[in-house]
């Protein structure tokens, strides 16, 4: 398994986790009705 494959498969997981948390903050002040 090449380094690139490792970076893409595992790295993308952490990037998306980070983006999910960022999205949670992004929508924090937009809710509540």
């Amino acid at each position, binding site marked *: 398994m090449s380094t690139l494959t490792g970076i*893409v*498969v595992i790295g993308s997981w952490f990037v998306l986790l980070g*983006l999910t948390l960022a999205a949670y903050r992004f*929508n924090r002040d937009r809710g509540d009705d």
Partner: protein
Amino acid sequence: MAGNSVFVGLIAYLVVMVVIGIISSRYMRTLDDYVLAGRRLGPWVAAISERASGESAWFLLGLPAAAYGAGFREYWDVIGIAAGILASWTFIAMPLRRETARLGALTLPDYFELRFKDKTRLLRIVSMVVILFFYTAYVAAQLVGASKIFQSILGLPEGSGQLICLVIGLVIVVAYTIMGGFLAVAWTDFIQGLLMTSVAVVLPIVGLFTIGGFSGLVERVAERGPDFMSVTAGTTGSAFFFGVVVGGLSWGFGYLGQPHLLARYMAIRKTSDLRRGGMVAMGWTLISYWGAPMIGIVGLAVLGPNLADPEMVMPQLAVTLLPGWIAGIMIAGATAAMMSTADSQLLVASSTLVEDIYVRLFRPAARPESLVLISRVCTVLIAGIAFVLAWSALNNPGTTSIIDGMVSYAWTGLGASFGPALLCALWWKRTTWHGALAGMFGGMVSTIAWKQIPALGEVLDIKAACVLISATLVVGVSLATSKE
């Protein structure tokens, strides 16, 4: 296949689904209840059920089969899909829930008409055509998938056996959908979503233990060559970028415009729940989707490269590695994936017929009780048409590619028709009626064109091309017709 214990696991699961339908039917009085569960869903049920209906037969059969054949390059699909799910929950869910509640819209065609104050009814009619056209094929593909699995478990012959299995799948899905409406669909999908996750996680892990961990895996798949273990799949330059990366990532575009998923956002209790819902949905995705291709990769190592039907890699792996009754429940997970998709789509298609045609165009003052009854009749009607389509597909040679073809066709068609128009309608004030109409129409027509003319697919992948065309039309036509 593995006989009685597998069968028991499957039957137990189907009984639970019907019981949920019966319980949910007690909570249902109006069309709002039938179509959106009275907007009472909590974040966990809304999120997990959205994920379960978003992932059809493709998730536990198609994707593992693709990874079984091509290896790690399938992770590009996974990344695109996860990004699409995240974008959908972040940029569409909350404004859509807020706007549809404010405007009193029950369905996507409702929303478009009210958002653009459309007196001509054209937006409603075009979106209705898109929904009925693509969903009938989509439901039919799910029924074909369910029938194939039932048939292989029960060991029935082709022909009459397939017909019986098709009827079993149809009756169960229709039964709990018409009894319990959206509430039943949401709760059965919730259970199905949890089942799908456990399959995607447990099977690869058990498989890896069996073959001696990751080094055992590398050893066993070595005969496929180094490309199997690489995300580049042996390509370089533009073949790598446009073929492998863009082709894989573009799966994500479809998520922005699937009415059966959008219905989940509209049905959630309050908009602040959508924030937690998004986290739950992404948690599901980050666990399940990184596991699903591993089913195929580990499947190659355990079962060898000569499976007759690669789409059966998940069921075969379950039967090989696990005790019968657990394998039965895992295989039920695959039928769960199909049913959770088919039920939601049936509901969207029937709500389109009732709410978008009957109520809005003919009988605005119809009584709530009679609308629920008419919705149930329409559900049966659409299921019947899908059944006929499924049966004729099963009687065609090359059924496997028909299922795959139908799913990716419907996925692209819905995503391209609704995604860009919806995103602009929610976020860009200058979006005009003309722009939305052009985008929807362009998305539908380009999907059909890309399907009919294979040469176009060589220029750019269908999933990326049609969304791009639709988005260009929405923005371009809106700018041209905007009065500001």
